[in-house]
């Protein structure tokens, strides 16, 4: 048996026999009253509780550990592997069976509880002991698989796959299944498949009123049209921007980079709000147009055009972030070869650069498409009578109709769309190779852009950057004037309400916004690295390891991205408010929600990055007898720095700006900035909302700067021309 397996076994016994199994109320690390009666009572260990007869259903779990302990002295063999697999598997099955069967009084699965010897019993939420035990059982199973030769016998690989599968199962599949199950249930809670069909084919979802008559189209069509438009436009804008920044000598590139990334770090509602102040019927621009050209003030901003504009402003930078990594990664040698062979700039661009951009473009489109579908803030503010699925789901849950079943059906439609896009993208990219970062020396110079491409890019980008700039002026000003759009007397009142600090008796954070700001930062700072690690690890496994169910795993990671935030929020409450995993009302549920919601971005950027890195680099490392982990750490990760940056930045920012997923999960103790801002907007206090948003923007900018500084730049060892490449080598701002 390998030493690592012994260690895992030790971990299991620690969780089973030493650390409290459950999670009693009032756990704290400074007062130990909750430990009373240890190792029995509320803070008892599984070992003591099982043997004393208080919780006999925990006994079989210990037997599984014992079975492995008996093998301690044996050397590694397929037979030992088989025992590990069976012990781990059966142990986990029994672990989850007792967890779900025996929960609160009067719930759970009675027949299973009776079978396990816990008929009529109740138990609380699982704690740290239970967690260590199940982790140990899982790892034993994975080690067993490695002993039997899975994944070239590499325990790091099998264990990583095991952990990721378990986490995704517990925090994506389980809650999603919980809520989708409610699609089959009528308002009174009875099982009714008929109502599911009626809900699914409702004309409010699929109606074609906008084509056949002068009414609104079904919400599914609206969503689809909006998402496709947003996906296409954001991808093109992002590409134009990336090409201009990396491949031309355009002036003002630094400013442009900063401005294009600003919308990402802007809390939702704010762009919509600014657009209303600019283009609304009494907006600044509408007023000027009326005064100068007698163009009548209208309400065009409310509906598809407004939402589209806001989404493009908000999501094009994401496409930019994805594509800048891809453009950077394209090997200049290929382009140089093309030019050496006599191709014109345009031919080189069309036949070499463009095809190499395809995976990046597909990823950027997919992100824009999915983002648009999941977006909640912009349709809420600017939607008018233009309804999309995400808002309809939200109001199906919280609106006057309170129809959770309808929400679940709408969520399923949304899921099908998102996953469909994912499937199409897979088909399009097929099995082609896009590898350009190889171990071979690569010292080419990036080709210059063809003139028409430069011209069109600049033509599109300049007005867009100007618009972004104006919007931020409005947002910045909004915090410092009394009422934006009406009374422009300068004031610091909004900042004082939110962020006053009292120094009279030491440091006291008096402002109303401090609590939520601190919680938000804590949650974001914890969840961002977790998201990045989990995401990149998953991407590595998907791209570089062969195992059965790889496609299923890839598909599943996209699932949580496709689930709209509102649905995820409700699903988390339904799933995690009761034992075995009882974590609602804690800061933890916020962290978990963010990690699993943002993980797909880590996976996507990891995949995009890895598809450019030649496999022979890892193979060389493996051939030199490095283990998977060493290869990942020393070879792959340094080359993945751009992907790591975008994963970290994205998840950090998203944890701060997301609304819909957390609006159900915030509690009195753990309130978040966005939930607070939404409240201010609802109360019509735009001044404070905008002031708070400005503060968040500054905070996020600092955070992103720190991430850049900490991760550093990928060194590709390419020759650089002066002075072009000095700016090309700048990190993403």
């Amino acid at each position, binding site marked *: 048996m390998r030493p690592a397996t012994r260690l*895992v076994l030790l971990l299991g016994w620690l969780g089973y026999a030493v650390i409290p199994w459950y*999670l009693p109320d009032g*756990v704290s690390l400074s007062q130990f009253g909750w430990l009373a009666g240890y190792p029995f009572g509320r803070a008892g260990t599984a070992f003591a509780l099982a043997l004393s007869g208080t919780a006999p259903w925990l006994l079989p779990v210990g037997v599984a550990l014992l079975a492995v302990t008996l093998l301690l002295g044996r050397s590694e063999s397929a037979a030992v592997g088989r025992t590990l697999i069976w012990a781990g598997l059966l142990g986990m099955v029994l672990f989850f069976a007792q967890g779900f069967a025996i929960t609160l009084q009067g719930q759970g699965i009675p027949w299973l509880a009776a079978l396990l010897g816990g008929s009529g019993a109740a138990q609380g*939420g699982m704690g740290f002991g239970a*967690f260590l035990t199940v*982790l140990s059982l899982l790892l034993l199973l994975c080690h067993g698989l490695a002993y039997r030769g899975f994944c070239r016998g590499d325990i790091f690989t099998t264990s990583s796959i095991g952990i990721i599968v378990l986490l995704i199962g517990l925090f994506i599949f389980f809650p999603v299944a919980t809520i989708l199950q409610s699609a089959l249930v009528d308002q009174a809670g009875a099982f009714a498949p008929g109502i599911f069909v009626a809900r699914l084919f409702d004309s409010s979802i699929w109606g074609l009123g906008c084509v056949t008559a002068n009414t609104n189209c079904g919400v599914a069509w609206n969503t689809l049209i909006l998402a496709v438009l947003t996906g296409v436009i954001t991808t093109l804008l992002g590409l134009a921007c990336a090409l201009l920044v990396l491949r031309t000598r355009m002036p003002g590139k630094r400013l442009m980079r900063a401005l294009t990334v600003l919308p990402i770090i802007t809390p939702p509602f704010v762009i919509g709000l600014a657009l209303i102040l600019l283009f609304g019927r009494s907006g600044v621009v509408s007023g000027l147009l009326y005064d100068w050209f007698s163009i009548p003030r209208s309400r065009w901003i409310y509906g598809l055009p407004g939402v589209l504009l806001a989404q493009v402003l908000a999501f094009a930078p994401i496409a930019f972030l994805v594509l800048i990594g891809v453009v950077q990664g394209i090997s200049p040698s290929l382009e140089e070869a093309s030019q050496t062979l006599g191709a014109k700039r345009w031919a080189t661009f069309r036949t070499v650069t463009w095809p190499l951009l395809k995976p990046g473009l597909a990823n950027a489109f997919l992100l824009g498409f999915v983002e648009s579908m999941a977006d909640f803030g912009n349709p809420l503010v600017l939607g008018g*009578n233009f309804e999309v699925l995400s808002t309809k789901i939200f109001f199906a849950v919280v609106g006057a*109709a*309170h129809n959770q079943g309808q929400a679940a059906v709408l969520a399923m439609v949304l899921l099908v769309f998102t996953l469909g896009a994912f499937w199409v993208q897979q088909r399009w990219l097929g099995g082609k190779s896009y590898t350009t970062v190889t171990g071979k020396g690569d010292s080419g110079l990036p080709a210059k852009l063809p003139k028409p491409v430069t011209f069109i890019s600049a033509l599109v980008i300049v007005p867009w950057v100007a618009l972004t700039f104006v919007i931020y002026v409005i947002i910045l000003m909004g915090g410092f004037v009394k009422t934006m759009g009406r009374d422009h007397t300068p004031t610091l009142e909004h900042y004082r309400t939110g962020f006053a600090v009292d120094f009279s008796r030491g440091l006291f954070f008096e402002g109303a916004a401090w609590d939520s700001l601190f919680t938000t930062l804590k949650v974001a700072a914890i969840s961002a690295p977790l998201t990045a*690690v989990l995401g990149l690890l998953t991407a590595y496994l998907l791209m570089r390891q062969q195992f059965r169910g790889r496609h299923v795993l890839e598909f599943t990671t996209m699932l949580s991205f496709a689930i709209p935030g509102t649905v995820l929020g409700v699903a988390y409450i339904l799933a995690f408010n009761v034992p075995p995993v009882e974590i609602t009302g804690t800061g933890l549920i916020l962290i978990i929600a963010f990690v699993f919601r943002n993980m797909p971005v880590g996976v996507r950027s990891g995949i995009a990055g890895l598809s450019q890195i030649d496999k022979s680099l890892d193979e060389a490392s493996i051939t030199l007898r490095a283990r998977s982990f060493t290869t990942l750490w020393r070879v792959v990760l340094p080359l993945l720095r751009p992907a790591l940056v975008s994963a970290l930045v994205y998840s950090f920012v998203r944890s701060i700006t997301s609304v819909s997923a957390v609006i159900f999960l915030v509690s009195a103790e753990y309130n978040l900035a966005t939930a607070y801002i939404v409240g201010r907007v609802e109360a019509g206090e735009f001044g404070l909302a905008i002031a708070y948003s400005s503060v968040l923007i500054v905070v996020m900018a600092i955070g992103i700067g720190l991430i850049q500084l900490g991760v550093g730049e990928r060194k590709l060892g390419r020759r650089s021309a002066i002075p072009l490449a000095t700016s090309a080598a700048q990190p993403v701002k």
Partner: protein
Amino acid sequence: MQGFQWLRTGVLAALASGAAFAAAPAQAQGALVMYCGVQEEWCRAMSTAFERDTGIKVAMTRKSAGEIYAQLKAESSNPRGDIWWGGTGDPHLQAAEEGLTLEYESPVNKDLHDWALSQWKAAQKRSVGIYAGALGFGFNTQQIKQKGLNEPKCWADLLDPKLKDDVQVADPNSSGTAYNLLATVVQLMGEEKGFDYLKKLHKNVSQYTKSGAAPAKAASLGETAVGIVFIHDAVVFAVQGDPIKAVAPCEGTGYEIGSMSIIKGARNLDNAKKFYDWALTPAAQALAAPAKSYQVPSNKNSTVPPQAPKMSEMKMIDYDFVKYGSSAERTRLLTKWDKEVKALPK
């Protein structure tokens, strides 16, 4: 070597995911978990005042009434909250109907207005009225003048063709305010004529908003000429000095009863009851006006804020909360509205 590396990865992984099981919700003694359904400032004033008066630590979360209802339903097998204070009465009634809240009779009940007690009776003692707000509309004075219209005073005035695409009201499917309008019109004019009115109004409605109070904000900014809202929502902007005027329609109008319920399964039941009794006292109800909330308080001895719409001077209908608060009637009316009004071409 390999063991060491494995240790490092294992510990990292354990920390990463293990945190998931580590922290427990704080359930300190002498605490109260309050779900608050009115605007933030008022919520905060209530919770800090109660803390100061009783020494009980209040953990307050502010959400819309619909969100709170959805949360209670989701948490029903293991409730987290103790008291649900504020928010329009319908979701409170629905929660009562589904047994999510607890029966309680406060000693302060004898001092309450009849409408507050009728909510209590309608909810089978599970919910009580804490404030009332009349339905009406707010109009932007500048816009109405520009259009050369007289100031609208009645429901009928909103059908003026000059107001085409210049009226906003929320969608009754998403907003309690708009459902209140639907029920009010049906009770005021009778079902057939009421729906006729709504069909005609549909031609003038530029947008059915999601949130009930949004039309007031839109009218104050001039994004719409008229917004149909609870009058107190429009008064907030008028007090700020925006060009908006609140109107109680001449034909008569309905009203909402903001309510309070004790959550069934409350972990701090005694404190919830203490809060319940305290929140009905004139002292507690006086906290509304300084927090820019101008509803009419439910205790007869409470002072009515001067900015509050005078309910006594308005023509109020006898709103049947039992009938129109029930799930069956609500679903029927909403389905009918979807089919006959919202589906109409403009």
